[in-house]
């Protein structure tokens, strides 16, 4: 429905087009003139007389040939269709003459047919030619556009190549030096050249302070630089970029009052681009370029600047890391130096052994302690200066250290010096490790030989006193037992014998003698009691265990204490002195229990182990507040405890006491076997 009016409209437009086209009319006029000429005998229109024509062609033959002119013209102008219409018109014009006017019908018809055929071929050939012409034009156009595209591509890649070269040289520059100042100075100059701008600013971001600091600039006055030294986050173009991390491009900053500050005005800046300096996704600062004339900024400019910004960001981060590392290295160097000074000048001997026991470092004091030159000491096996038994002990401690146990903070160790003499050191050991992997053991040793000697002397002195004390008691006890008691026994026997044999005495006298006998017996008992108290002969005659057993039973019998004795392990005998000493410790402990503890129960235990023997006395009494050091006990008047400690030391053992008010008291003495 819609097609018809449009088709009609098109036709009327075509009609109008034809009617107004002078070329159309020229074709029509030519056609008419030829037709008029062709029928000259009817129209009397004659342009030329009949010439002598070869091949028997008549003047009308020429007319007929002339019809080719409008046909070709029409074909040219309106295409093959136009040409064919004119052919048809020419045919129509030629046929009447050939049929009715000319006397040579056959020749005329033949001519007419030939001309019509030729004139039909002409528009078709022309059309073909025209089509080829159009195709050629199109091809050329395509080629031209391809050429243009190619050209553009080359241009672009050249541009990119240039940018890459710029970025490359830039990155080479940045990687060349780690001197921050130098890098930034070169950076701004290069950016200025690359971007062809007048002003370049580089800010670094101080995150915790939330501010930007101008670290390099070019193209602005010093005063402006001072004004721009610190910028808050979010302030101005750069402040915004630092805040958002997105580049910002302003063609005319004077039109943006929010972004325009005094410095921008002073410097008469117009166009500005600012990009963030990024490193590993972190904003390190901003890079800002600006021109004083208004310049149409291209996205490519931003991209390039952005690429440069990333390079600067990474470089900046590297510089930061480097300087941090430098600072750390310097600190390390200083602390190493300090440690070395301490190590070398320490009064205490310090040395480090590797895990196989070889000395790998030692200070002067260590050399002096062991009596070796330092270079001899380093590289020496520690077995050489640790005596066998102490070596094993030291090994055990090292093993503990390696296993993460730190039982001994410091301990006494015997060492053998170069000249074979012995010395004592108070050692503390530490594991030396790197990356949580143990490399060796550090020893810090203080020469305590003098202290140990003094202690030994003191101990020896105390031992002598205690021994003398014990001996004196033994002597008195023996004296009483051996002389007084024996004399009494002998006297008793004599008296007995006398009484039994003497029959001359009166019964009364005899009874009196028996009474004396009884009194003497009583005196004998008393003497034995005194003697026993001074030194129970049981310890001398039977040894420690029966003596302790006897002692425990005595507590039961005499004080009503629930006392018990347990013996574990295979019984071992000690020297008489040691046994007496241990007996005295237990005796003193039990005496304290009876006198002070208000206990109802006491447990004595003797445990024989492979390497030592543990004697413990535990009561359920009142206990007491233990001073910080057991040594203070004597000052507090607890001389009994002090005596026990001394005695424990005398037998080469250790003494330990655990007590608190209301919790009873536990005493443990450990004696090496």
């Amino acid at each position: 429905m819609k097609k018809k009016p449009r088709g009609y409209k098109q036709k009327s437009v075509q009609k109008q087009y034809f009617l107004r086209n002078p070329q159309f009319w020229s074709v029509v006029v030519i056609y008419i003139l030829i037709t008029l000429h062709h029928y000259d005998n009817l129209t009397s229109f004659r342009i030329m007389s009949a010439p002598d024509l070869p091949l028997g062609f008549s003047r009308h033959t020429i007319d007929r040939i002339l019809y080719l002119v409008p046909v070709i013209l029409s074909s040219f102008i309106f295409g093959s269709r136009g040409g064919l219409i004119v052919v048809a018109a020419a045919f129509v014009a030629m046929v009447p003459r050939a049929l009715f006017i000319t006397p040579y019908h056959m020749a005329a018809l033949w001519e007419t047919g030939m001309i019509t055929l030729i004139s039909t071929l002409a528009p078709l050939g022309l059309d073909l030619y025209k089509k080829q012409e159009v195709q050629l034009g199109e091809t050329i156009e395509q080629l031209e556009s391809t050429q243009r595209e190619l050209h553009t591509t080359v241009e672009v890649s050249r541009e990119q190549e240039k940018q890459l070269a710029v970025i490359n040289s830039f990155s080479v520059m940045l990687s060349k030096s780690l001197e921050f100042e130098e890098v930034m100075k070169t950076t701004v100059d290069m950016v200025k050249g690359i971007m062809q701008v007048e002003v370049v600013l580089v800010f670094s971001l101080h995150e915790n302070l939330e501010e930007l600091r101008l670290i390099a600039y070019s193209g602005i006055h010093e005063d402006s630089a001072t004004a721009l030294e610190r910028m808050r986050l979010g302030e101005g173009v750069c402040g915004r970029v630092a805040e958002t991390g997105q580049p910002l491009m302003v063609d005319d900053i004077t039109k943006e009052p929010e972004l325009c500050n005094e410095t921008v005005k002073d410097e008469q800046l117009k166009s500005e681009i600012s990009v963030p300096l990024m490193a590993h996704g972190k904003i390190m600062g901003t890079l800002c370029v600006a021109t004083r004339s208004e310049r149409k900024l291209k996205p490519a400019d931003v991209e390039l600047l952005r690429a440069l910004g990333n390079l600067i960001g990474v470089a900046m981060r590297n510089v930061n890391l480097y300087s941090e590392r430098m600072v750390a290295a310097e600190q390390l160097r200083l602390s190493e130096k300090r440690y070395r000074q301490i190590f070398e000048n320490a009064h205490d001997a310090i040395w480090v052994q590797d895990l196989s026991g070889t000395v790998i470092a030692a200070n002067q004091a260590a050399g002096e302690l062991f009596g070796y030159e330092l270079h001899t000491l380093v590289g020496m096996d520690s077995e050489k200066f640790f005596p066998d038994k102490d070596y094993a002990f030291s090994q055990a401690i090292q093993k503990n250290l390696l296993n993460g146990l730190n039982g001994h903070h410091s301990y006494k160790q015997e060492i053998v010096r170069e000249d074979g003499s012995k010395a004592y050191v108070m050692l503390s050991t530490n594991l030396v490790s790197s990356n949580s992997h143990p490399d060796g053991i550090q020893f810090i040793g203080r020469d305590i030989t003098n202290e140990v000697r003094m202690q030994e002397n003191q101990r020896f002195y105390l031992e002598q006193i205690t021994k003398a004390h014990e001996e004196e008691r033994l002597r008195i006890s023996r004296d009483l037992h051996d002389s007084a008691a024996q004399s009494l026994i002998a006297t008793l026997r004599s008296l007995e014998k006398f009484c039994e044999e003497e029959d001359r005495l009166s019964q009364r006298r005899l009874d009196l003698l028996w009474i004396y006998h009884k009194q003497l017996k009583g005196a004998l008992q008393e003497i034995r009691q005194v003697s026993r108290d001074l030194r129970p002969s049981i310890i001398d005659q039977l040894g420690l265990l029966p003596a302790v057993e006897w002692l425990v039973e005595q507590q039961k019998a005499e004080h009503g204490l629930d006392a018990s004795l347990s013996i574990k392990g295979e019984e071992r005998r000690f020297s008489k002195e040691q046994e007496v000493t241990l007996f005295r410790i237990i005796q003193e402990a039990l005496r304290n229990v009876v006198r002070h503890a208000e206990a109802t129960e006491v447990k004595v235990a003797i445990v024989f182990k492979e390497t030592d023997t543990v004697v413990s006395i535990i009561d359920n009494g009142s206990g007491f507040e233990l001073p910080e050091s057991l040594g203070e006990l004597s000052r507090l008047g607890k001389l009994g405890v002090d005596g026990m400690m001394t005695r424990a030391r005398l037998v080469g053992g250790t003494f330990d006491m655990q007590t608190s008010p209301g919790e009873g008291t536990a005493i443990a003495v450990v004696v090496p076997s």
Partner: protein
Amino acid sequence: MIKEKTRTIRILLAEDHVLVRESLREYLEKDPDLEVVGEAGDGEQMVALAEELQPDIIVADVSMPKVNGIEATKRIKEKNINIPILILTAYDADQYIFSLLEAGAAGYLLKDISGKELIDSIRRVSKGDSVLHPTVVHKVMERFRNTGKNQGAQYYGLFTDREIEALELAARGKTNKEIADKLGVSIRTVEAHLGHIFEKLNVSSRTEAVILALKKGWICLD
């Protein structure tokens, strides 16, 4: 010579105090049945003389120089010298009693015992009878019973039932006469049974026999 033939008891005295030793000897020799054949001043001498003189009984003090009485007793028993030993001690502490009985002593006497009691004890021991007081015997049993690891161990083939019965009664502190009454036999038979036991166990006193039997778990007192 005549005396010896009428069952004289030959005694070795071990006592370091000359005075006490002399008074003891004097006292003992009042009795025609007793003869002190040797005197030792210390433990070592005691062992040597025991071996050399082979007395019927040894009376020894505990506290003596060099080797004490208990240690000397142990040594004599170790040498398989079958002589009963009576220990004289100044102390009645249980530990002494246990120690000296364990060492192989036949019995112990407190030093302030009267001469009469001493002589009586010597006679009883030489006959193989016990000199331990019943309360002491009880303590001793308690002590040694607990050390017997293999209670109710087999004694078959070693003793006759009669012998074990006699030993068990002896362990309960019965005298030979009491044992004889209980078993309905004569004292001589009891003495014979015990004698056989001593021989089999290679001991010289009933105390030693009882302690050994308790330790081995052959007899049970519960």
